[in-house]
């Protein structure tokens, strides 16, 4: 197993069946491909439009990348500062090494309140650690309140997108899920998105008014002040953050920004990159428990330090989960998110998931790309995903036991590292002229001819001129 500096990796929902196998299955689903092409096509156009409006997009992007790099370079100091700021205002701070520990902490906090039900703001971190399942194990029902998460939950389905977990479902499929699974829903419910949103509003309204414990993630944590930021659209986030008396926020340790001012960059980059809006409908900022609430923050590692340890891979931790790379990726558009087998699909998932788990547990994801580079172009924090994919492919290859190919390549590298050695070797090439016609190389010569070595090397010809 290749981990940098022996750093422990993460667990939870980060692996699945090998990508080629899962992708083959997904590619056979014409409905899925239609749903995805329509949705990603819509969002790509919107994003391009609002990004083009800003004359200083490139400068914002450079600043966003640099701010995140600064956080990662001094992450220990920022975490300590963040903890101090939170604690001084009365928030309880907890630390979790991995998914299991985070789940133990959160289920403990929830059980202590005596509730049997919690309401949740959409949070990738809680999906990553498998929190809903952990809560169910102790008899607590977690109610997802984001519309797409609710569709996924009611349909007993899995998220396939960072921003819109139910992107693989079209309106009529969603209507069917609601009619089947939503208690008391109008049997004549139409598939008009307005009617579907209204049904979700009615379904959740009572929960918001009565459930007393909420679980959220956070888009940003400000180290300087202890402020937490949740960026959302529907108002379900505001409901969860405001009404229950206990609020538990699950925050990956990479979510920090150094100072309040830094949000001036990210609150421009994130909405335009994610939903293609100039600004999302609602952003909540709270600094310490508000209006009599009890507030907990759980800081989660779960493989993030293992990612940080790789100098060529750590920039994946800049990610602000906008999903622009998913929406732009020709591979994602055809396979959908489930094929990646991880909470984090698409190009960012292909670089993040293998680093969080260690490449040995996700050896196919770095290859789930054509390396076309559009993900890098649209990334608001300039993560060079294509280069990182190549780097991770190398790590995957290195982590495997020797194959005939890798042995041959290593021998070749040895020969090519010395001019005289190399010269002697290529002279031997003329003896391969016969062999190349007769020796089969399975996996190579089945689909193409083996090149014929020349009778005389170029160097010999040049010198004998």
């Amino acid at each position: 197993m290749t981990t940098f500096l022996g750093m422990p990796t993460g667990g939870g929902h980060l692996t699945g069946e090998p990508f080629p196998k899962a992708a083959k299955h997904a590619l056979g689903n014409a409905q899925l491909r239609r749903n995805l092409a329509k949705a990603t096509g819509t969002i790509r156009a919107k994003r391009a439009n609002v990004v083009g409006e800003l004359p200083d997009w490139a400068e914002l992007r450079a600043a966003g990348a640099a701010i995140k790099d600064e956080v990662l370079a001094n992450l220990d100091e920022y975490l300590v500062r963040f903890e101090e700021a939170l604690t001084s205002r009365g928030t309880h701070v907890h630390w979790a090494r991995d998914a299991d520990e985070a789940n133990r902490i959160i289920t403990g906090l929830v059980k202590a309140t005596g509730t049997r039900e919690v309401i949740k703001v959409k949070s990738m971190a809680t999906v990553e650690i498998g929190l809903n399942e952990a809560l169910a194990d102790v008899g607590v029902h977690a109610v997802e309140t984001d519309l797409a998460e609710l569709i996924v939950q009611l349909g007993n389905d899995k998220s396939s997108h960072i921003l819109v977990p139910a992107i693989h479902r079209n309106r009529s499929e969603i209507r069917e899920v609601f009619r089947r699974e939503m208690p008391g829903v109008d049997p004549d419910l139409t598939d008009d998105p307005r009617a579907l949103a209204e049904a979700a509003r009615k379904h959740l309204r009572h929960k918001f008014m009565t459930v007393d414990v909420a679980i959220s993630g956070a888009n940003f944590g400000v180290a300087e002040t202890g402020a937490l930021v949740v960026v959302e659209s529907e108002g379900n986030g505001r409901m969860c953050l405001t009404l229950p008396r206990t609020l538990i926020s699950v925050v990956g340790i990479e979510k920090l920004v150094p100072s309040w001012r830094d949000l001036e960059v990210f609150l421009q980059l994130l909405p335009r990159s994610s939903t293609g809006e100039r600004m999302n409908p609602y952003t909540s900022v709270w600094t310490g428990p508000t209006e009599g609430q009890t507030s907990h923050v759980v800081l989660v590692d779960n493989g993030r330090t293992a990612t940080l340890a790789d100098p060529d891979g750590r920039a994946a931790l800049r990610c602000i989960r906008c999903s622009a790379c998913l929406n732009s990726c020709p591979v994602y558009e055809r396979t959908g998110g489930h094929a990646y087998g991880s909470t984090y699909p698409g190009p960012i998932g292909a670089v993040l998931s293998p680093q969080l788990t260690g490449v040995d547990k996700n050896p196919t994801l770095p290859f789930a790309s054509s390396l076309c580079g559009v993900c890098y172009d649209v990334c608001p924090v300039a993560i060079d995903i294509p280069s990182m994919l190549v780097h991770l492919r190398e790590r995957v290859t290195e982590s495997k036991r020797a194959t005939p190919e890798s042995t041959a390549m290593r021998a070749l590298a040895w020969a090519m590292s010395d001019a005289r050695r190399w010269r002697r070797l290529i002279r031997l090439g003329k003896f391969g002229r016969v062999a190349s016609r007769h020796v089969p190389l399975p996996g190579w010569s089945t689909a193409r001819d083996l090149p014929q070595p020349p009778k005389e090397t170029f160097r010999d010809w040049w010198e004998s001129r």
Partner: protein
Amino acid sequence: MSARDEVLARVRRAKGPRDPAPVPRDYRAAGTRGPGDLDLFAERLRDYRARVRVVPADQVAETIAAALRERGARRVVVAPGTPPEWTELSYPAGRIESRDPLGGDPREANTEVKAEAKAGANTEAKAEAGAGSEVARAPEGVDAVGLDTDGTVSVDRVGADTLDVAILERADAVVTACHVAVAETGTIVLDHDAADQGPRALTLVPDYHIVVVRADQVVAGVPDAVAALAGVRTQTWISGPSATSDIELERVEGVHGPRTLEVVIAR
């Protein structure tokens, strides 16, 4: 080793010796673009399908009254620190409950108003109601306001200490001020520690939010707003009514937050 110490130790081992380059801030920074363009602000809001009324500063009260009338709002909650004149025209036969947010039990007061509303009590009867409440005189042409069959509207002024979600659930509308607004993105930001913007639930639970934005509160871009919000503990950034794009990435306005946002821009 505690989880905290172990995670921090891992970070120290992992982060490497590298000192990153300073953050380049070559984007349009705060204070470089002058005041916000009100026309652009209104246009951006309309893009979100918010309702926008741009009016002279001395017509805010009439505008609020007209908006409530068109909406058919009967129970209105108002952030306690808003100027009283904003809503004076909106409760022709109603009353203000707990102008001081700490004065009296709002639940009791609210029940009382409802009972009176049902009884169709006239203004004289209300004048004799309990201490701590005030009666607003009905202006001329109450009927033209046409608020309801019994002509009664209750206006609750609620603060953090008197907040009851049940009151808010029954409210048809909420009226607040704001802290700052962004022209380029059509964003309005509330400071929930400010008395004229009220606690968070106030502007969340009622289905109709009227927010008054003064022209001098509108800044050009997001950095200007972030600068104006330094030190503000609890904020809500609002850009149009609640919305979702979760079904086929098509935007639908109106999910859990207020489904109608009415912005009164006072020039």
